[in-house]
C-alpha cells in the first residue's frame, strides 16, 4: 500500500492542535482535567460493587443450566434447604410479578421454569450465610433435565422448529434503496464471519439488595441504566417503581454487557424473601455466562461499481445469532443493516438483516452495536473492489466518502458534521512510523514465546473506515435529566447517568465550571430516588445527552442568578456575565461574589433534555431513524509470521470525528481502549462454542490483548467539526475506535499474507495452515 500517501498528498495537513493549557486554566470544558475516581482506582481504594458490605448480610448464588437446551421435569430443593446456614432457595414459582424480563421484549425468564434454552440460564437461587454454603447448597439442588438437541446454527434457525414461544426470528428487515435494477461493471463478492466477542469487563456482576420497611427494596448495583433496571425489577417483583430504589455502585467496566439485567431481580427476590441484605458477586467463570455478548455474524456481500470506482450498488445478507433471548438484538440488526454499506455514497442498496434465536448464549449490546460486524465485511469488500479496479484502496474510499447532504442507504439525508473524507485523509497521510527490523522479541510476533525473528516476518498495512449512529434511534423517546443547585458558591449536580468508565464524572464537573464559573462542583450519587432517567450509558450518548442535561440545568441556574442580580442592580441580565466566581456588570462598575449571592439563597434547576425525534423504518427500510453519526479511520501496520500464523500489530494510526474535544486525556483513553478491543476481536477474542457449550469462560482461555499485543496508538488528528445540537458541539467518542480497528487489522494481515481471511478473529491456523 505504498501509494497510500500519494493518494492524499495533495491535501493540506490540518491536524487540530488543542491548547490544553488555555483550556485548563478554569478546569472547564476542553481542559485536561483528571478523573476524580482515577487515583482511587489505581490505588485500589475505589469501592466497586463487589466491595459492598452490610450488617448480617447473606450471600446469594445462582444455579445455572449446564445444558444448552433441555426440559425441566422436576426440581428438588430439599437437599439445598438441608444445609445449615441456608436462608432461602427460590425457583421460578417464587417470582411474584411478571415472570419474564427483557430490554425490548419481555421474553427471558427471571428463572427457568420448565425449559432451559442456553448454558448458564438461571434456574434457582440460594441465599446463605457464607458464599461457599450458598454455592454448595445450589449444587445440591436436584434438577431433572430432559436434554433436547440444541439449535446452534444461526443460518438454520429461521426454518427450524421454534425453540421459544415467540419464534426463532427476532427481527427480519429489508432495506431497499434506489434503483435495484442497476448493476456495476465491476462486481466483487465475499462471505464474512465474525465470532462471538465478550465485553470482558474487569469487575464481575455484583451488587447488594436490602429489604425496606414499605415492602420495597433498595438495590446497589453496577449497571448502565438505573431506570430501565428499575422498571424491569418492579414488574418482576410486582412492586410500584417507586418501591424499587436503585443506587449506582462502583462499576468495573460495562461495554454494553450491563445494559441487560443479570443479577438485579435475583438479588431483590432473595432480599424480599429473607428480609435481610443479600449480596452477590459472580465468579469470573459465571460472569462469562451471566451477560450478553457481541453477536456472531455471517454476512454475504456483493458490491457493484463503475470502472471509475463509484459505488453503484451494495447487496448484503446479514445473519446475527441472537442466542436464546431477544435482548437488544432487534436494534443491533437494524444498526448492522443500516450501516452495511459503510460511510459511502451508494446509488442502490438491498440489504436483508436477520437476527435469530438459537441455543447459544444470548447476545446483545457491545461497543459498536452491530456496526462492528458489518464494518469488517464492507471494508474487506472495499479492498477487494480496489484490487479489482486496480485502484488505491484509500483513493477508492475517498471517492465514495459520504458527506453532509448525502443520503444513507436508509434514505436519510446527513445533516450536521460528518467529515468522512477528512478522517480518511488525515489518517492516511499521517507519516508512517519508522519501524526498523528488530530482534527484540517484545516487538515480534509470538512475543515472549520467542518464536519469531525479524527474518521470519512479513509486513502489511491495512486501512479501514467505519461509522455509526450516536444516541438511540428508530423513534425511541430518548432523554436525560439533570438537576443543578448552587449554594455558597458550590455547584451540586444530580444526574442518574451511570459512570461506567466513560468519564461523565469528570465532564459533568467541567461543564458546571464552564457554565457557572464555579470552582467546586459536587456530583451527587446516581440514584433513582433523586433523579429521573438519564437513559443508558451506551450508544456513545451520555456526553451529549446527560452532558446536555447538565449544561441546560446549569444555564437555567445562571439565568436565574443573573436575572435576580440584574433586578437588584436595575440592569438588564444581558449586561451581566459570570467570571471567576463573580457576577460582573459589563460596565465594569459593579460586581458581586457568586458565593455570597448563593449563600443568601440557593439557586436550583431541574431539566429534561431530549434530542430531535427520530422516525421508524418503513417497509423498505427507509426513514430518518438516526440523530447523528460519527466516523473514524484506522491505519494498521502488522508484522506477521506466516509459518506460524502469529501477528504483532506494530502501529495503529487513527483520525476520528469527535465534534469537539471536551477532555483530551479522556478522549485518548476512549480511543486507545476502543482500539484494544478492536485488536482483540481481530486477533484473539472469541467465546468458543461447541454445540451450545461455552468452552472458554475464563481469562485463562478468553484472551484479551496485553501490552505486548497492543501497539502504540498514533492520533493523526481529532477532527473537531462541532455538531449542531450537541453540547459544545461534542460527539460521543466511545464506539468509533472499536468499529474500524478490527477491520483495519484484518486488512493489514491480508496485505502481509496475501490470504483472503474472511473471518475474525483470525486464528494462527487460519494463516499457517491456509491453502495458498
Amino acid at each position, binding site marked *: 500500500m505504498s501509494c497510500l500517501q500519494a493518494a492524499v498528498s495533495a491535501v493540506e495537513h490540518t491536524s487540530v492542535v488543542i491548547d490544553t493549557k488555555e483550556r485548563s486554566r478554569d478546569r472547564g470544558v476542553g481542559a485536561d482535567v483528571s478523573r476524580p475516581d482515577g487515583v482511587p482506582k489505581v490505588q485500589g481504594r475505589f469501592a466497586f460493587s463487589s466491595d459492598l458490605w452490610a450488617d448480617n448480610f447473606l450471600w446469594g448464588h445462582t444455579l445455572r443450566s449446564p445444558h444448552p437446551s433441555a426440559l425441566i421435569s422436576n426440581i428438588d430443593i430439599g437437599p439445598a434447604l438441608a444445609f445449615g446456614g441456608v436462608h432461602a432457595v427460590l425457583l421460578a414459582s417464587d417470582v411474584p410479578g411478571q415472570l419474564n424480563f427483557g430490554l425490548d421484549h419481555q421474553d427471558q425468564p427471571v428463572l427457568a421454569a420448565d425449559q432451559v434454552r442456553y448454558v448458564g440460564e438461571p434456574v434457582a437461587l440460594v441465599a446463605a450465610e457464607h458464599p461457599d454454603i450458598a*454455592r454448595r447448597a445450589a449444587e445440591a439442588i436436584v434438577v431433572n433435565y430432559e436434554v433436547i438437541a440444541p439449535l446452534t446454527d444461526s443460518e438454520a434457525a429461521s426454518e427450524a422448529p421454534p425453540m421459544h414461544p415467540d419464534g426463532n426470528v427476532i427481527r427480519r428487515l429489508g432495506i431497499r434503496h434506489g434503483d435495484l435494477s442497476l448493476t456495476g461493471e465491476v462486481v466483487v463478492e465475499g462471505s464474512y464471519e465474525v465470532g462471538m466477542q465478550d465485553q470482558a469487563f474487569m469487575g464481575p456482576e455484583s451488587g447488594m439488595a436490602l429489604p425496606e420497611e414499605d415492602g420495597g427494596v433498595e438495590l446497589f448495583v453496577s449497571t448502565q441504566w438505573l431506570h430501565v433496571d428499575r422498571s424491569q425489577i418492579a414488574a418482576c417483583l410486582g412492586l410500584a417503581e417507586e418501591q424499587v430504589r436503585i443506587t449506582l455502585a462502583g462499576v468495573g467496566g460495562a461495554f454494553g454487557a450491563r445494559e441487560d439485567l443479570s443479577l438485579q431481580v435475583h438479588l431483590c427476590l432473595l432480599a424480599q424473601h429473607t428480609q435481610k441484605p443479600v449480596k452477590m458477586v459472580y*465468579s*469470573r*467463570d459465571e460472569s462469562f455466562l451471566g451477560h450478553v455478548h457481541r453477536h456472531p455474524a455471517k454476512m454475504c456481500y456483493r458490491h457493484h461499481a463503475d470502472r471509475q470506482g463509484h459505488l453503484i450498488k451494495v447487496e448484503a445478507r446479514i445473519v446475527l445469532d441472537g442466542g436464546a433471548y431477544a435482548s437488544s438484538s432487534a436494534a443491533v440488526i437494524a444498526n448492522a443493516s443500516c450501516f452495511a454499506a459503510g460511510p459511502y455514497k451508494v446509488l442502490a442498496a438491498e440489504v436483508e438483516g436477520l437476527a435469530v434465536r438459537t441455543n447459544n448464549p444470548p447476545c446483545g449490546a457491545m461497543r459498536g452495536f452491530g456496526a462492528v460486524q458489518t464494518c469488517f465485511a464492507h471494508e474487506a469488500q472495499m479492498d477487494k473492489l480496489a484490487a479489482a479496479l486496480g485502484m488505491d484502496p484509500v483513493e477508492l474510499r475517498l471517492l465514495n466518502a459520504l458527506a453532509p447532504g448525502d443520503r444513507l442507504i436508509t434514505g436519510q439525508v446527513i445533516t450536521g458534521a460528518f467529515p468522512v473524507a477528512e478522517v480518511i485523509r488525515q489518517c492516511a497521510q499521517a507519516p508512517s512510523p519508522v519501524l526498523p527490523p528488530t530482534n527484540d522479541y*517484545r516487538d515480534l*510476533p*509470538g*512475543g*515472549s*514465546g*520467542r*518464536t519469531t*525473528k525479524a527474518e*521470519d516476518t512479513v509486513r502489511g498495512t491495512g486501512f479501514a473506515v467505519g461509522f455509526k449512529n450516536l444516541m438511540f434511534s428508530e423513534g425511541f423517546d430518548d432523554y436525560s435529566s439533570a438537576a443543578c443547585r448552587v449554594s455558597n458558591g458550590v455547584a451540586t449536580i444530580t444526574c442518574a447517568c451511570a459512570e461506567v468508565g466513560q468519564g461523565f464524572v469528570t465532564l459533568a464537573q467541567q461543564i458546571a465550571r464552564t457554565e457557572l464559573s464555579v470552582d467546586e462542583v459536587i456530583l451527587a450519587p446516581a440514584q433513582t430516588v433523586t433523579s429521573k432517567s438519564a437513559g443508558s450509558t451506551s450508544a456513545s450518548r451520555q456526553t451529549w445527552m446527560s452532558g446536555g442535561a447538565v449544561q441546560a440545568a446549569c444555564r437555567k441556574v445562571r439565568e436565574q442568578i443573573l436575572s435576580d442580580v440584574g433586578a437588584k442592580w436595575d440592569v438588564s441580565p444581558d449586561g451581566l456575565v459570570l467570571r471567576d466566581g463573580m457576577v460582573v456588570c459589563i460596565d465594569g462598575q459593579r460586581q458581586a461574589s457568586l458565593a455570597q449571592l448563593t449563600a443568601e439563597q440557593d439557586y436550583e434547576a431541574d431539566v429534561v433534555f431530549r434530542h430531535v425525534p427520530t422516525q421508524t423504518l418503513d417497509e423498505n427500510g427507509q426513514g430518518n431513524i438516526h440523530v447523528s453519526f460519527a466516523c473514524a479511520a484506522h491505519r494498521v501496520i502488522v508484522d506477521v509470521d506466516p*509459518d*506460524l*500464523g*502469529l501477528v*504483532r500489530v506494530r502501529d495503529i494510526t487513527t483520525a476520528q470525528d469527535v465534534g469537539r474535544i471536551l477532555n483530551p486525556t479522556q478522549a485518548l483513553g476512549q480511543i486507545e481502549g476502543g482500539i484494544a478491543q478492536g485488536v482483540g476481536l481481530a*486477533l*484473539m477474542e472469541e467465546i*468458543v462454542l*461447541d454445540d451450545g457449550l461455552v*468452552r*472458554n469462560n*475464563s481469562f*485463562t*482461555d478468553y*484472551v484479551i*490483548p*496485553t*501490552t*505486548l*499485543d497492543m501497539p502504540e496508538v498514533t492520533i493523526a488528528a481529532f477532527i473537531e467539526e462541532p455538531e449542531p445540537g450537541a453540547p459544545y458541539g461534542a460527539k460521543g467518542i466511545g464506539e468509533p475506535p472499536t468499529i474500524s480497528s478490527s477491520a483495519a487489522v484484518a486488512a493489514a494481515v491480508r496485505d502481509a499474507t496475501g490470504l483472503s481471511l474472511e473471518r475474525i478473529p483470525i*486464528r*494462527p*491456523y487460519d494463516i*499457517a*495452515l491456509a491453502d495458498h
Partner: protein
Amino acid sequence: MTNVIVARSVDEALATLSEAPDITILAGGTDLMVEINRGLRQLNSVIALAQVPELHRWSIGEDRLMIGAGVTYTTMLNTKLAQAAPALAQAARTVGSPPIRNAGTLGGNLGTASPAGDTLPVLAALNASIVLDGPSGERCLSLEEFMVGVKRTCLAPGELIKAVEMDHLSGGQEYLKIGPRNAMVISMAGVALAVDRKAKQVRCALGAVAANIPRASEAEAWVGERINWDSGTGVDSVLAQEFGQRMAAESSPIDDHRSTAAYRRHAVGVLAARALQRVFSEGTNGYV
C-alpha cells in the same frame, strides 16, 4: 475454615505432612488459588512453603545444577541460573506476568504437572531429577517417572518436592512457545532444545502436544548423527526442516478449544527447525 500452617524448615514441613497427609501444599499459589477461586478444589488445611529457606536455594555445579522447589521464575531469570540454563530462563520469561513470575515456583509447576507447564520440557531436555522427600526418605525421579499423566504426579502422601537437579550444559539452548497472544498465555505448543557438546547430543522435549512431556528421542538421534560435532556445522535449512518434521511426528497433540491438533503438530515442526537453526547458526555453532 481452612487451617494454614506456615512451615519454617523442610523438617518441619515433613513432620506436618506426615501427621496430616491430606494437607494441601501451597507454594506461590498461582495455580492453587486459581483452582480454589474457580471452586475446583476444596481445602481442609494448607501448609505454606514460602518461608522455608532451604527450598529457595540453588547452586551451579560443574555438571549439574540444583534448584530448590521454592525458587521463583524471577530468580531463574535474574540470577546466574539464566546463563547456566538459558532455556529455563527463556521458559521462565514466558510464564505469566511479572507478579506471577515473582510468586510462581519451579516446584509448583511440577506439582501442577500440566503438559503445558513451561519449565517441564526444559527439565526433560536437561535430564532433570526431581528430588522428593517424605516419610520413607528421599527419592530422585526423572520427569517421565514423576509425571504420570495430565496433572497427575507420583507424589506419595506426605511427600514434597524438595529440589530439581539438572544438567549444566555448555551448548546452546532454546525454549520456544506458542500461545494465543504475545504474552501471558498457556502454551499451545512448546519446544525445548539443548545441545550437549560433550555427549554430542541434541536433546529435545515437547510441551502441550501430548499427555506427558515427550522427549523426541528418534529425532534427537537422527540429527545428532548429521552434525559435525568438531566444527559445530552441518545444520542447514534443509536439515532443519526435516528435523522439524521428525519432531512433529513425535508429538501427539489433540484438538481442543485452544487450537487444533493439526496446527500444534505443524507448529512443533516450525519451532523445532527454528530452534535447531538458532543454536547452530553462524557465530554460535551451538557452542554458546
